[in-house]
């Protein structure tokens, strides 16, 4: 291979250890107009190797190949376990963003446990993104770039089964029916929310195990 630009791109991507913006990469090479083509070429070269070149959003990075996850458990650093509630909340936000807290609650049919939103925000996967122009101006929640990167998505439009969900009408935010969700809400004051506090314990391992 004689293409110096490709060598440079590989070296930079390798050395940086984190995703790099395509525009920043462009600065480093001669054949700036062909940056996309060069990157795709590299991607193709590595596609069956132990290292892959991945694009998430507008950023590129080398990562270990997906099918090796069993062999690489030694590198596992993600210790945090997500509760089932947090995961459901995350996926609702991902598909319905921007969305308010009470819209999420309507879909889940349950008051949100304290900690769900702040926990997801702490991990860096969701962020407040404006306010809805309805009375009370509630905060709208969206996913972050980190979410896209972390879940290996090209972009949000890459979310699995999005079209299916849309076709089935499940991406409507309407409350299924006023009465059901109102019932759930009226009751907020009655119960001490005991069971909500401990939801963190229902961890994702249980969740996966049970399926």
């Amino acid at each position, binding site marked *: 291979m004689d293409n110096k630009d490709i060598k440079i791109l590989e*070296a*930079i991507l390798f*050395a*940086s*250890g984190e995703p790099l913006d395509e525009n920043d990469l462009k600065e480093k090479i001669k054949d700036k107009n062909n940056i996309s083509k060069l990157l795709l070429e590299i991607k193709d070269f590595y596609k069956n190797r132990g*290292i892959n070149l991945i694009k998430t959003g507008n950023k590129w990075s*080398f*990562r*270990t*190949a*997906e099918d090796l*996850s069993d062999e*690489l458990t030694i590198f*596992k*650093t*993600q210790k945090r376990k997500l509760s*089932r*509630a947090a*995961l*459901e909340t*995350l*996926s609702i936000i991902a*598909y319905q963003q921007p969305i308010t807290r009470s819209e999420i609650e309507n*879909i*889940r*049919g*349950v*008051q949100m446990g304290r900690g769900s939103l*702040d926990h997801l*925000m702490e991990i*860096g996967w969701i962020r*407040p993104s404006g306010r809805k122009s309805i009375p009370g101006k509630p905060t709208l929640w969206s996913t972050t770039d980190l979410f896209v990167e*972390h*879940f*290996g998505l090209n972009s949000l439009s890459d*979310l*699995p*089964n999005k079209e299916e*969900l849309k076709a*089935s009408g*499940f991406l409507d935010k309407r409350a*299924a*029916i006023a*009465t*059901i969700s109102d*019932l*759930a809400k*009226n*009751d907020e004051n*009655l*119960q001490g929310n*005991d*069971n909500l506090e401990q*939801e963190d314990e*229902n961890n*994702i391992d249980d*969740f*996966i195990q*049970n*399926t």
Partner: protein
Amino acid sequence: MLNVPDTEIKEGQFNLLLDNFEGPIDLLLVLARSQKVDLSDISISELADQYINFINEYRNIHIEIAADYLVMAAWLTYLKSRLLLPKEEKTDEYTADELEEALKYQLQRLEAFQNISKIIYSRSLVNRDVFYGGSSEGLKVKYNINYTSNLYDLLKSYSQILKSNEQVKQLTIEYSELYSVDQAVKRLKGIFGNITEWTNFLNVIPNLIKANKTINKSIISSNFVASLELSKNGFIDLKQDESFGNIYIKFNQNG
């Protein structure tokens, strides 16, 4: 694999804890799945029975049950009765069919998102399944400082300030004029010598201040508690001849 219910409920198996469910809709969904895999064919009336039975059985064993589960049971009972009635005339309210449809939709939508959340989490996640790596050895490196403090840190920090400012507020407890048991014990001990015969309890307590009912009540009850205490220790005897009758008190000279 993704369509299998998280928790299977077999008939008569009520040792499941509601803590395992994310609210009534989630429980309904699990019940519904045990009825049919395809939720669009589900019988809402049958599901309502299942749910109500489950909740009733559950209450027999676990006394505590979150209110929203009960509210849902009540709502389903209502829905069922509406479904059984002859078709109503169109009113402003939802028809029974509409309610049924809405509940089905709610269940299907939640199921869809529960499945999606599993699919999403089974993707290759950074630091769990795939890893960044590499080494910059051999290249010249210049460092930029990037402050990674994010919105979460900022909000957390502000919340700490709000919290600590709340805690600093002093809690002033008002001086209470209520008559304490200690006071009563002291006082009773002081007048022991005078109570050598059976005396009506009400005659032993201090004069009641007419103006304040609460204080009066406190005087009576603390003196009563005090005399129980003193009789337990053998200082005095207490007697009551009939239920709700007068209470008599006497100094126990042997005590």
